[in-house]
């Protein structure tokens, strides 16, 4: 009994120590962890036929080799990225093959820094707004510079920001993905940077236009890097509105009559997107446009993946099956766009809810995508730490329940996929069914997160406040 008590106290002490370790120390530990993983990858690859390094890392490195030889990176087959990725990895050839991994791991840490700063800024701002709102109810208006004395320790911005950053830093999935050489964290960094600049513009009125313009530049760059952030545009745009859109007419007015801030965002995005696209088009021609952009629209991948549309795509690949009509294609694609529109209008109209909106939109993009692999999960996992504080209405038990459901649905999908791939069983319909189960599970998780979202979850001491 005494021993159990001592162990519990030990765990509690460890938990407290982790909680109070400075953010810089967490960054240092995470950096060492990532360097360790990169070293392990180098040793593993030199000995094993099953490589640790991501196949895309090799493709981009080959693209970089072509660039150094004065050729186009698209000369490497299956190179379907922005040429920027090849430029970034040229030092793989000139300096060391692990250079790119080191660079992506650095962006991993930069993401954590942005998460930390963004959450800190947002919690503080939300707290101040809540206090102001609360005080106005008691007819005791005060200026906006309230101290954080009335907050309990667990809701303190510093602690919440550190916990959110740690959620990213110690996530094994993200650490492994970046150290395997996947460039997803590079693009995720610019998605979070866009959100950060938009949120910062609300608190820094003097420089707000420049910050929004900067957000536009980052958004244009990330659309150039990966197409999917294009679908975040409506939410970014609406978050800069000054009044609530409630009717379709309001919405139309919002779109047709942008305010100054919205114009800054649009111009920043267009300048950056057009500049990058035009530069690379003049350098590499039509091949660049096709491989980096158009291919992703015409891509049909009938090989098994998590997507609900996998079975449909596979069965539709038969020459005897006619190409579906435009109406049928619209019916398949429309639910995704309907949800994106709904989420942008529901959570995109205020900057306080913007991080959650972008998370939910990314979640919908991945869930409804025609091809879904594990690597796509990073699109929303990178934004999830920004909104952890907003899920306080969900109990720990329910959180773990949802996580368990998400993992279980993947495990259930893996079984028929394994049987097809390694035992050549005819499990196409079983995979299709499990894809549908995973789809429904994701839908349920999203509904739970939407229904339990709360933006002002503070335990405020009224005695200290009043």
């Amino acid at each position: 009994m005494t021993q159990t008590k001592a162990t519990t106290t030990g765990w509690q002490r460890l938990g407290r120590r982790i909680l109070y370790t400075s953010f810089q120390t967490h960054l240092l530990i995470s950096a060492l962890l990532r360097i360790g993983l990169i070293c392990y990858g180098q040793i593993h690859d030199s000995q094993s036929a099953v490589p640790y390094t991501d196949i895309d890392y090799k493709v981009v490195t080959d693209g970089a080799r072509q660039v150094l030889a004065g050729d186009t990176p698209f000369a490497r087959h299956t190179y379907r990225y922005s040429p920027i990725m090849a430029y970034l990895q040229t030092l793989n050839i000139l300096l060391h093959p692990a250079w790119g991994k080191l660079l992506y791991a650095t962006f991993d840490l930069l993401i954590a820094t942005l998460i930390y700063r963004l959450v800190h800024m947002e919690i503080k701002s939300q707290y101040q707004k809540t206090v102001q709102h609360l005080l106005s109810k008691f007819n005791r208006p005060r200026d906006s510079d309230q101290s954080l004395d009335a907050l309990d320790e667990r809701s303190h911005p510093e602690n919440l920001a550190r916990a959110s950053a740690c959620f990213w830093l110690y996530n094994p999935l993200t650490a492994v993905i970046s150290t395997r050489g996947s460039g997803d964290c590079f693009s995720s960094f610019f998605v979070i940077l866009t959100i950060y600049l938009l949120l910062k513009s609300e608190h820094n009125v003097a420089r707000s236009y420049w910050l929004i313009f900067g957000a536009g530049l980052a958004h244009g760059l990330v659309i150039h890097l990966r197409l999917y952030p294009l679908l975040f545009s409506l939410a970014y745009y609406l978050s800069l509105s000054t009044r609530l859109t409630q009717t379709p007419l309001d919405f139309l007015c919002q779109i047709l009559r942008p305010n100054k801030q919205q114009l800054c965002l649009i111009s920043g995005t267009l300048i950056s997107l057009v500049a990058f696209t035009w530069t690379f088009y003049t350098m590499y021609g039509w091949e660049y446009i096709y491989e980096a952009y158009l291919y992703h629209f015409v891509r049909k991948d009938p090989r098994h993946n998590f997507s609900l549309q996998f079975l449909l795509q596979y069965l539709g690949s038969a020459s005897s099956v006619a190409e579906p009509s435009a109406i049928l294609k619209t019916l398949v694609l429309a639910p995704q766009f309907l949800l994106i529109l709904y989420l942008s209008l529901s959570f995109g109209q205020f900057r306080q809810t913007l991080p959650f909106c972008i998370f939910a939109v990314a979640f919908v993009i991945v869930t409804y995508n025609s091809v879904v692999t594990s690597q796509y999960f990073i699109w929303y996992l990178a934004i999830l730490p920004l909104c952890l504080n907003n899920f306080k209405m969900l109990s720990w038990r329910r959180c773990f329940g949802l996580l368990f459901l998400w993992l279980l649905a993947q495990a259930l999908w893996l079984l028929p996929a394994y049987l097809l791939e390694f035992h050549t069983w005819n499990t196409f319909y079983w995979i299709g069914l499990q894809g549908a189960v995973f789809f429904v599970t994701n839908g349920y998780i999203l509904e739970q997160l939407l229904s339990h979202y709360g933006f002002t979850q503070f335990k405020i001491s009224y005695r200290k406040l009043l």
Partner: protein
Amino acid sequence: MDKAGMHRTLNYRMRFDIPLVGKDCEYVLLQDLPASVYISTDELDDLQRLKRLNAIYPKFVNIEVATERAHPFSVLLRGTPKITESLALPLHFRYHAPSDKRSAATVAIPLPELYLNCPMADSALIENELVARPDKLYCLNAPESRFDENHVKDGQPATMANLQRCNWRRVHVDCQLKMPLRAEIPVGQTSAYGPVLCGTILLGWSLALWTIIHSMANTRRINQRLNEQRLLQQKVK
């Protein structure tokens, strides 16, 4: 070949007669692969780097297309004759287009062909009865990963490199298969397309509408509160 799976390894156990072993000869095992099979050039590059494979294969093999749109190709496995030697070639089967006539497609992998190249002085080592076509010499066409018959044209320079490249003889192989070189690749039913299309549309719409209906109350409440905050702030300003 491994018994099952879309990813298998072709294992060869080579045995040579003693007179060829330890000489300056070289062999190439030509493995033709049908359109329903592909190799990952990145995977083979890694194996070559680890010195677990010495092979010639096409620079680019499209791994994304289905069988019906793919083309056959060959892989050449190189080595020097030893009394016994094991070689392994990892290969992958492509998906086949769905059909209403079958639930599996049989893919047969042809037997490999063996080519030998001994220096001019040692060419007598290759016994005549061993050679499949004694009157023919073959040129190794590495860029296309195949062998071409050696047609000597007038005026073609008889360089040492050319002589060596075109000094290959195809020899008989006594193949002993541990199991048939055949694979049964599953195939879906085309007739299921209609119901699957309806199910996909129905499920996509149902989930989207259900999500919207269930979360609407909370989103309205949040927007109302945020709007109150905004109005208050505008008033304070």
